[in-house]
């Protein structure tokens, strides 16, 4: 397997890209997705794979500077293991072979020669101009090699101006093995990018989308806000605390002498390659005016209920009402199941009026494993939304 250089993507692909595969990184205009290709290139270099990089749109020098600034100078492209064909080569080919057919032959001959002589493992192609100069079929034909070498892995980056139909052609007409579409929400605030694993040839996978940010030269899958809500004393603060690697809780003493959340709980979590921020709402009705604001821009909700207190369910149902219109992925965690007297699932669903397809887990929020299990289910739901 060849690593994409992005752990979460490798995980989604079942460990990486099988050698000899054809991979497409499709980018919609404006999306900050250049690091996908760069990450794969950098990992290939780190793993001593021999690489051919085809950049018809720019010079090696400019590309090299761009990569250095994107990766904070961590990668040196002046390795013996990498060969570049850049915009200067493109100009030479255009001059020596003005006719498209002969230019196509010259491109093909050059690439085949490099691959044979250097035993290239991976070809990275910025495909836009080859596509424009020769069309999709002939452009891809340039990258088909003869019998002289083992089939290299082919990784393409393409500015996709045609949307889904173009992806479909890569999958069905040209048998690409992996298609990842990188898009932008282009909401004004907040702005976020996400990638969708559209296709893998070796195993049927659900279409999954994952929001991401770029930080320190890396693609970081990112879920900006998960809200944990539920009636007072259902265990939300404990849940947030056990979900987080760092966090704060703004508590104060309640009238019954117990601590209760007065503003919110906040937790930060790095998990399964994701950066996630978890907000816990107060459960007391007097704070209800705050809750719609906290649900704004939320990507997922965990409703915590006390599984031993049937009388708290009407309040939980009220809180479901506050988030129902938003249509964000929601899971329910029936907490305190380590105590006697827990309700049955059927009873809870009936009281809350929630459908069977909303996941419901019986947990103890004091158990980190239970908490992580709930988060895993929610993250799965979030990443399956096509946006």
């Amino acid at each position, binding site marked *: 397997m060849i690593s994409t250089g992005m752990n979460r993507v490798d995980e989604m692909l079942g460990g990486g890209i099988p050698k000899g595969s054809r991979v497409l990184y499709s*980018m*919609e*205009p*404006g*999306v*900050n997705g*250049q690091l996908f290709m760069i990450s794969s290139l950098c990992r290939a270099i780190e793993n001593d794979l021999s690489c051919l990089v085809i950049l018809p*749109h*720019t*010079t090696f*020098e*400019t*590309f*090299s*500077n*761009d990569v250095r*600034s994107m990766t904070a100078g961590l990668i040196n492209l002046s390795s013996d293991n990498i060969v570049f064909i850049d*915009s200067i080569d493109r100009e030479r080919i255009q001059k020596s072979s003005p006719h498209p057919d002969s230019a196509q032959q010259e491109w093909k001959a050059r690439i085949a020669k490099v691959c044979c002589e250097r035993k290239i493992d991976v070809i990275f192609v*910025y495909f*836009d*101009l080859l596509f*424009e100069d020769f069309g999709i079929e002939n452009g891809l034909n340039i990258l088909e090699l003869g019998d002289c070498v083992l089939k290299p892995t082919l990784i393409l*980056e393409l*500015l996709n*101006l*045609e949307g889904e139909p173009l992806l479909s052609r890569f999958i069905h007409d040209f048998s690409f093995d992996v298609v990842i579409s990188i898009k*932008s929400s*282009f909401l*004004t*605030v907040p*702005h976020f990018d996400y990638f969708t694993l559209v296709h893998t040839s070796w195993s049927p996978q659900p279409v999954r989308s994952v929001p991401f940010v770029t930080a320190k030269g890396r693609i970081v899958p990112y879920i900006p806000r998960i809200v944990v809500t539920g009636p007072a004393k259902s265990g939300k603060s404990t849940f947030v605390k056990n979900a987080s690697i760092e966090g704060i809780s703004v508590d104060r003493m309640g009238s019954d002498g117990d601590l209760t959340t007065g503003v919110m709980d906040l937790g930060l979590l790095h998990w399964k390659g994701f950066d996630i921020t978890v907000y816990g709402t107060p459960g007391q009705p007097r704070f209800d005016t705050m809750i719609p604001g906290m649900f704004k821009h939320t990507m997922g909700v965990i409703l915590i209920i006390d599984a031993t207190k049937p009388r708290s369910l009407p309040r939980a149902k009220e809180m479901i009402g506050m988030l129902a219109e938003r249509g964000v992925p929601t899971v329910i965690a029936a907490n305190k199941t380590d105590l006697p007297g827990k309700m049955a699932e059927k009873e809870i669903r009936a009281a809350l009026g929630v459908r069977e397809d909303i996941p419901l887990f019986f947990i103890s929020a004091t158990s980190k494993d239970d908490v992580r299990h709930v988060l895993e289910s929610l993250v799965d739901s979030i990443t399956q939304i096509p946006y």
Partner: protein
Amino acid sequence: MYSYKTGIDQIDQLSGGFEAGTNILILAPPMSYADQLAYALTKPVTGEYAITLSTNERAAEVVDFFKVAGSDKRFIGVIDAITKSSTPSIVDTPRLRFVSSPTDLTGIGIKFSNMIEAIFEGDFSDGESGLFPPPIRFCVNSVSTLLMYRKLEVLYQFLHVITAKLKKIEGVGIYILNSESFDDKTLSLIKQLMNCVIEIKIEQDGSYLRIMGIRGINPVWQKFSVNKGQVTILP
């Protein structure tokens, strides 16, 4: 809805200016000062922001124009598509961003989004803030140069995305296209993306403009001049 003043009294009084989401094509022959007119329409008033995609001039020259026209440079951004080819190591700043060449539509799209994002997040103007939501004027100088590097169909699709994004953020777009260097099909296709077309012609006694697509404005030829970012309709 926000209105973008043109700075031309006769037009602003009749129409109130450009409605948010308007995309304007300036169709002009060579040497007709179309870029001066485009920059004058792009010049931000207080509280607004301006971004220029420059395929013909270096970023510093573009910023100079706006400074001379009296704009605060902290509200001016430039995507420079020419400097990097001669200075590959040049580094982006929040307001000046560089792409390798006008060929690089991927890079242009990314820098455009980055700047819009920076404006919305308040990271654009050295701590100064304009209006919110931010009114943004975007100028492409020029579509003609982009067409020399990329095919019409590709550029059409690319501009389709950009114009749609400008509508979404309620900005205005101003695009310069040489009216004499391209065939009717090209002109007609690019016009399809626009809500407003400003045609320029040169006569012996000076330059004339005609505005089509703004409510309240008659599409008649009017003599004009541009000086230090100020457009004047002449009698």
